[in-house]
């Protein structure tokens, strides 16, 4: 039972039909579904254990309709445009010009990027599509004859519930691709040293795209460990309004920043605009692969250590992957940019 649903029923004077009793009336269900658009549930992970296990076997609780984040973004068009227009009205004339220029620049320049590992890039080069964790689990289950859920639990360990619970809040949550807007630079390199930048034609073909000012998991996480996906409600933008969201969010910094620094307003090591989208990613969707000079030098260093010397399998595997990327670049199959 979810607190928001209870609140809705109480407010409407409708007796709660399910308190320990599985009776559900159509009237209540319809009412709850309508109101849930405004009052988002705040559930602790513990409360939702049972619900998650139900969802995993494909029979989701009827009382918790999934949220369609893409519809949410489409519904925000007017409010995002209005926020941007209000911003321009509030500003001095001197500050308006760079803001408008930034918005035009962001619209023209920002692309989706995914920071990932070298072996993922090599999979793409070898004509294997990019996989999210659920696709990986499905494939691994086929290869190993182990249950999908066991593989997910094993891989995610103590983070299993957090990931599953969050993704299952949304329609098609298990098909989501998580990326970030990128208008130059290597993105957040912490663990993904290879920044796959997707091309504009691919991006324009996407029918399901939402841009979020930050990390969706962080935005929705509550102090008690529960999620409030309602936090996303007014903060997600569709593709054609993503540049306005970025501009509005960074409005304070744009007038004082040199244009050369604008890409860092879109994505830097510690902040970015998350993009959630649906769609298969193959090599023809890739604009270029970006990596830092430090990573580039580290990989050639590892290559040198392995020339004429038999070292570990791990090193040879990585060097072999790196040389495949380099071969693809030399052959013109992919563009690689090394950034200082």
């Amino acid at each position, binding site marked *: 039972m979810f607190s928001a649903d209870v609140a809705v029923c109480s407010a409407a004077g409708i007796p709660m039909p399910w308190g320990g009793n599985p009776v559900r009336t159509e009237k209540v269900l319809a009412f709850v579904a309508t109101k849930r658009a405004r009052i988002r549930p705040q559930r602790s992970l513990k409360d939702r254990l049972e619900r998650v296990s139900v969802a995993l076997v494909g029979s989701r609780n009827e009382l918790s309709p999934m949220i369609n984040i893409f519809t949410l973004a489409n519904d925000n068009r007017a409010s995002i445009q209005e926020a941007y227009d209000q911003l321009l009205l509030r500003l001095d004339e001197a500050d308006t010009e760079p803001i408008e220029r930034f918005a035009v620049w962001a619209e023209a320049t920002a692309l989706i990027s995914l920071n990932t*590992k*070298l072996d993922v890039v090599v999979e793409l080069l070898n004509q294997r599509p990019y996989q999210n964790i659920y696709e990986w689990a499905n494939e691994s289950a086929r290869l190993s004859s182990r249950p999908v859920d066991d593989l997910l639990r094993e891989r995610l360990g103590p983070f299993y519930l957090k990931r599953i619970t969050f993704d299952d809040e949304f329609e098609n949550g298990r098909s989501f691709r998580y990326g970030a807007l990128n208008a130059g630079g290597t993105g957040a390199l*912490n663990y993904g040293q290879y920044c796959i930048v997707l091309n504009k034609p691919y991006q324009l073909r996407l029918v399901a795209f939402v841009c979020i000012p930050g990390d969706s998991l962080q935005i929705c996480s509550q102090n008690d460990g529960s999620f409030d996906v309602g936090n996303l409600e007014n903060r997600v933008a569709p593709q054609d309004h993503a540049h306005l969201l970025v501009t509005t969010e960074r409005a304070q910094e744009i007038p004082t920043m040199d244009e050369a620094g604008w890409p860092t307003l879109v994505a830097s090591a510690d902040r970015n605009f998350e993009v959630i989208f649906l769609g298969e990613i193959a090599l023809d969707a890739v604009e270029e692969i970006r990596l830092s000079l430090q990573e580039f030098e*580290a990989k050639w260093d590892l290559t040198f250590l392995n020339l004429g010397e038999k070292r570990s399998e791990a090193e*040879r*595997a990585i060097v072999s992957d790196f040389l495949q990327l*380099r071969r693809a670049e030399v052959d013109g199959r992919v563009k690689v940019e090394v950034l200082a």
Partner: protein
Amino acid sequence: LNLKLEAFYPSEGAGIVRTERNLFLVRPPYRRRDSVSLLEESVDDAVLKHGFFASTAEFRSWEEVIEFLNGEVAKTRQAVGKDIPNEIDIRDTLQLAPPPVLENFISRIEAELINNNSFDRAENLLVAFLNSNASNRADLSRRAAHLLQINKEKKAAVEKSLAEVANGDKRFASLRRHKQVEKTARLAEAIIHRGCIYSSC
């Protein structure tokens, strides 16, 4: 030593390891200088967003951690039918390396191989270099040829001194210095003849 592997990325042998005081990201070639100190929340990010596998494994030494991570690379790649080459093809690599990298390789052959008496490996790399497209750059080619010559000379010098040690009789240096070799040899023969070290026997 108690090392806890918090998360790892099996196909590349990378691991997030908790020591008593810190959290480190380690990855091949597992040198101390390449390990990165991490913030506490990094484990969440690594598993939730960057494809790392959560882990509770504990190890008593860094060698054990590295052995585990190395093993995972082979296991994971084998499971999906990806071969790991037995060796890295030198000629292929030299063809793919951009000019600044080739320059760096040549410098390292001199500094790390020739100067550390790894003559055979240096020779293999230099010969491969001179036989590859990389030698199209005249300056690099000249430098490689020069290093090959130096490598041969140094190798010959070292082999010569090793041969002297192996073949030359370096025993009894002090007796030789004091011109006592013959006298001592006679004494030794006398002892053998008597079957006793005492002259009264």
